[in-house]
Structure formats: structure tokens, C-alpha cells
């Protein structure tokens, strides 16, 4: 009697296992299928661009001449955003997880999560109407005193709507993403290691450096990559903030353009070849994100020994 019961229970357990692993596998397969469909859609829609004569492409000199400046512009904006947001985001996460009083930390974590939710239109409107006008004076100063550095070559923009402003707005947008995810990782760092480090006489910073950061490295990179995904693909905020133009080195003059903003600005009126061009631009953006992510995965995999599930 009891043995059959046991056997039956074991049997249901096995069915559960099968169903569960099957569902997990199915979900993975679904993602593969969807991605394949999206990729197919993109490639099919982008193809006419590559077969069109060079003179018909915007700019009249072929697709790659057209896309190159805005690829660089996209990278500039995303780089500025990550250079600002990564250190600050990690510091904010550390502040919440290891520095702030516990009760305050919970509230702060909540506020940070909330900030990730502000729609990009709002960030765009804020950047265009408030931040840009605040930055006019600093830009003027940079142009006058640091103008010999090509990055700050004058004359400074009279509206403050430059690629640097766009980068800062993007940084504000990705900061909550990075801060929120890294905070979760920091909170999961093994308590025993941290207490051991402190017990051995380590200062708080040494403890963080030895017991928290190495554990969190993969997670930090993942968080930064998610932030980068948003920075690269952000359309509305950049479209509203940036006074776009041809590719220039100076960060404080109006100029440069990002792929996502170009798509957002021109897609509504696009027709025929122009539409295919913009989708091809989307494909390029897709490939950039892909390349960056592959590098990030590679870095994470080199540090796999720190993750718990292996």
C-alpha cells in the first residue's frame, strides 16, 4: 500500500519535471522563433536599399556613406551616456546596498525603480526645455577656455541642444536601470564573505572591493548592457533634445545624429526607398547592439567562476 503510494508520488513528480522542463524549453524555442521572424522581417524590408543605385540613396553616395555619420553619432551619444551613468549608477547602487541607513535605503531603492518608469517623452521634454537652457552658459565657457580641445571647439550652440546634452539626458535615463539591477546584485553578495572580510579588519571599502564587486562583476556588465540597449535604441528623447546635423567632433555645437532618432524623425513621412533605407538603418543599429552584447557576454563568461549556478 505504502509502496504504491510512494511510487505514484514519484510518478507525478516525474511528470511535473517533464512538463516543467518542456515548458522551459518551449519558451526558449518561442524566443528563437520570434527573433528569427523579426530578423527575417528586417532583412526583407531592408534589402531594396542594398540593391538600389547609390545615387538614389539619401545623400546620393550610397548607403554606407549615408549610414556612417549616424552610426558614429549613435556611438558618441551612447558612450557619453554610459561614461556618466555607469560609475554613478554603481555608486548609487552601493550607496543603497551598503552605505545608507537600512530604512532610508528601502525608500531610495523604490524611488530609483520609479525613475526607470518615466516615459522618454517626458525626459525629452525636460531635456529640451530645462536642461538645454541650463547648459548654454557652461558650453560657452568650455568653448572659450577649452576650445583648443577638438571636443569643445566653438562656437557653442545658442540653444544648448547638442550631442553632449543628449548624452546627459540618456545618462539620466539609463542610470535607474543600472542602479536598480546592480543594487539587486550587491544585495545578493554572500553575507558570510563580507562579514569575514570585516572580521579580518578590512575597511568598508576593502570589504566591498574584495567580497562584493568580484561577485557582482557579471551582473554589473549585464546591467550596463541593458542600459546600453536603451541608450542606443532611445528615439524620442534624442529626437526632442538634439539639434541634429552633419557629423562633427565638437560636443558643444549642434550637429550629429543618432540612428534611432533619425528613424523616429523621418519614418512617419518616409515612403518607398526611404522607408527601406530607414529599416536598413534599424538593421545596422541591431547589429551594433549585437556586437556590443557579444563582447559583454564574452567578458562575463571569462568570470563565470563567480556565479552561483555553476
Amino acid at each position, binding site marked *: 500500500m505504502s509502496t504504491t503510494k510512494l511510487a505514484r508520488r514519484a510518478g507525478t513528480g516525474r511528470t511535473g519535471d517533464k512538463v516543467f522542463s518542456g515548458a522551459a524549453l518551449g519558451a526558449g524555442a518561442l524566443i528563437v522563433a520570434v527573433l528569427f521572424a523579426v530578423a527575417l522581417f528586417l532583412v526583407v524590408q531592408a534589402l531594396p536599399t542594398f540593391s538600389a543605385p547609390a545615387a538614389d540613396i*539619401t545623400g546620393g553616395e550610397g548607403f554606407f556613406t549615408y549610414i556612417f555619420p549616424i552610426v558614429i553619432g549613435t556611438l558618441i551619444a551612447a558612450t557619453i551616456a554610459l561614461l556618466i551613468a555607469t560609475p554613478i549608477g554603481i555608486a548609487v547602487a552601493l550607496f543603497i546596498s551598503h552605505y545608507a541607513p537600512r*530604512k*532610508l535605503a*528601502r*525608500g*531610495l531603492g*523604490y*524611488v530609483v525603480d520609479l525613475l526607470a518608469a518615466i516615459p522618454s517623452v517626458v525626459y525629452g521634454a525636460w531635456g*529640451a*526645455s530645462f536642461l538645454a*537652457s541650463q547648459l548654454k552658459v557652461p558650453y560657452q565657457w568650455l568653448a572659450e577656455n577649452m576650445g583648443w580641445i577638438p571636443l569643445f571647439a566653438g562656437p557653442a*550652440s*545658442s*540653444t544648448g*541642444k547638442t550631442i553632449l546634452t543628449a548624452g546627459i539626458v540618456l545618462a539620466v535615463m539609463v542610470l535607474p536601470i543600472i542602479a536598480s539591477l546592480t543594487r539587486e546584485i550587491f544585495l545578493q553578495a554572500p553575507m558570510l564573505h563580507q562579514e569575514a572580510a570585516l572580521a579580518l579588519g578590512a575597511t568598508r571599502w576593502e570589504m566591498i572591493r574584495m567580497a562584493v564587486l568580484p561577485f557582482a562583476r557579471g551582473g554589473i556588465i549585464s546591467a550596463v548592457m541593458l542600459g546600453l540597449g536603451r541608450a542606443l535604441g532611445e528615439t524620442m528623447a534624442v*529626437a*526632442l533634445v*538634439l*539639434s*541634429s*546635423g*552633419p557629423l562633427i567632433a565638437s560636443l558643444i555645437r*549642434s550637429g550629429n545624429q543618432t540612428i534611432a532618432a533619425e528613424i*523616429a*524623425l*523621418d*519614418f*512617419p*513621412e*518616409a*515612403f518607398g526607398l*526611404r*522607408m527601406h533605407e530607414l529599416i536598413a538603418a534599424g538593421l545596422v543599429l541591431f547589429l551594433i547592439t549585437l556586437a556590443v552584447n557579444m563582447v559583454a557576454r564574452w567578458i562575463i563568461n571569462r568570470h563565470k567562476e563567480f556565479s552561483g549556478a555553476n
Partner: protein
Amino acid sequence: MKALHIGRVAAVLTVGALALTACGTDNVVETGNGATTGASAGPTVTGTLTGTGASSISAAMDAWKAGFESANSGAKVQYSPEGSGAGRKALIAGAVQFAGSDAYLKDEELVSAQEKCGPDGAINVPWYISPITVAFNVEGVKALKLDADTIAKIFRGDIKNWNDAAIKAANPDATLPDLAITPVHRSDNSGTTENFTDYLAAAAKTVWTDAKSGDWPTALPGENAKGTSGVVKTTTETAGAITYADDSAVTDALGKVELKVGDTFVPVTAEAAAIAVDAATVVEGRSANDLSLKLDRTTTVAGAYPAVLVSYGVFCAHYPDAATVDLVKSFGTFVLSDEGQKQAADAAKSAPLSAALATKAKASVDSISVAK
């Protein structure tokens, strides 16, 4: 902690507010308040009419929708302002019954429309006129007289300062400061830019060497912003800025340019815009019911304001069933009626079509029929 506390209070309040709104309503505007009676409409029609297209007409479309639906209680119009290109694409794909477009269908687009609309393809009917104002932000100056060449030079960055001799010559009375000019243009591809560059390319041939285009030539200096509201905002905030924008959105804070037409200077008005559109010729080689207009930007007709944008309703020449035909015709007739044009003018400050053009346009809409 305090933040958390405030958050909780806010959350409770919101939950309460949401609970209160659990019974939302579509009855926003009381009848008789701004909306009109359906006196002029013929027999009422029913069904849903779907359109996509230019965002420039969205304010007018809101008014038309409201007016049409109050006259035909069983009918519903939905319009998604995704852009002219999206609208034309959707019409050609057969996804919508009509499109709104700031430019008429090109010949090859007419050909591709035949697949879903039948052998007679689609027709373009003008239904919305918006004058494009050249607006500037110079303190104390509310009007300037400029010819097309000077405007083109300003937007190309050839004239860099407001006290330039060329501006002074035409405006001896204005006190023009020593202030750098910042041209502001649209960053998005738009019908406004296309019509304005068309005007410059035609009226200032020697200076404006770029072809007309919905994208502003990127090589030119200046700042840009997204959308009509964006350029107006940027210009209002930047001393010495000049821009072009649909007249309806230009506020009193900015000065407006009077364009030189023939030998006189014409300020921007709805009537002047309608006169310029009347002076236009119909594009040849299209079906008799197609009203695609070729605007004459160099017109010398007295009182005409040639920098105008004409927006078209694009319909199929034939629809498969009678219900759709009735709905489309009824809506088109309403939009082109005096009442429809007046409602758009009230709501969106557009220029009503002249009676002559409206009659022609109504005839075009009337020609829409069931496919054989």
C-alpha cells in the same frame, strides 16, 4: 523613509482615484457646447471609417470627427496621425479607407494604388490649407517685409545679423538690433519643410540652389527642433532666432514676415492663403476627378500668400461595397462643406477652401462609386 511614506499616501490616493474613475465616460462635451447640429447633413450614415496620415491635420481632424459624428450618430471616424508617408502606404496596402497626406500621390504611387482601389486607382482631394509663417524672435519687432531672396539668404546663413543692409533696406522704420541670426528648422521630415523649400526654390531661384525636399538640407547652418511646436518653442526661447512654421502655432510672442509678392508685401492671413491656392493649376495627366494642385509659388496675383501647405484627403476611386462608399462620400462632403471648413478654421486656425475650389472638390468626392 519620508519618501516611502509620501509614496504610500500617494498610492492610497491613486487607488482611490482609480476606483472613482471605474465608471469613465465618453460624454465629455455637452451637446450644444462647441459641437454643431447636423442640420446641413443629408441622410445619416452608419459604420466606422478608418484613416491614417499626416499629423498636420490632426487638430482639424478632431473637429471634423466631432462634427461628423454628432451629425451621424451611428457613424464613427478614426484617424491615426502617423505621418503622410504612413498614410499613403496604408491606403495603397488597403489597410485604411482614406489617407491624409501633405503631398499628393506621385504617379508611381497612383499605379500601385490600383491593386487595392481598382483600375481607376486613387484620387487626391485638397481639404486643408495652412499658410506657412516665417516667424522671428527680435525684441520690439513684430513685422518685417522681406523678399524671397533675403529669406533664402537668411536661412542659408549668408545673412548673419539682423542689422544687415538687405533687411534694413526693406524695413527703414524697424529698429533692428546688432544680433546674430539663428535659423531654426524642422529636424523631422515634414510637409511644412517640403512646401517651404518649394517656395524658396521657386521664388528665390538664384539663392536657394537645393531642390525642394521634406528634409531640410543638412549642410546648412542653424539649429533644429522636432515638430511645429518644437521649432516655435525653440525660436521663442532663443533671441535672434528665425523659423518657418504653420501659422496656427505661431504665437504673438514672435514677429511675422510679410512676403513680397509682385511689388507688394503680403502679411499672412487665411484669405491670402486661399487666394494663392486658387491660383494653382491642377496637375495634368490624371483622372478628371483628381484635384492634385501645382502651386505657383511665384504668383503675382494681388493679395496671394504663396507659402502655403495644401493637405489632401486621398480616397480610392471605387470601394467594394455601397456602405463604405456612402460613408466616405458623406464624410468627404461634410469636410468640404462650409460648416466643416469653418469648424476646422475655428479649431485649427486653418484657411478655409474658397467656394470655387470647395465645389470642385465636392464634385470629386461625389464621383466615388462602388466598384463594378
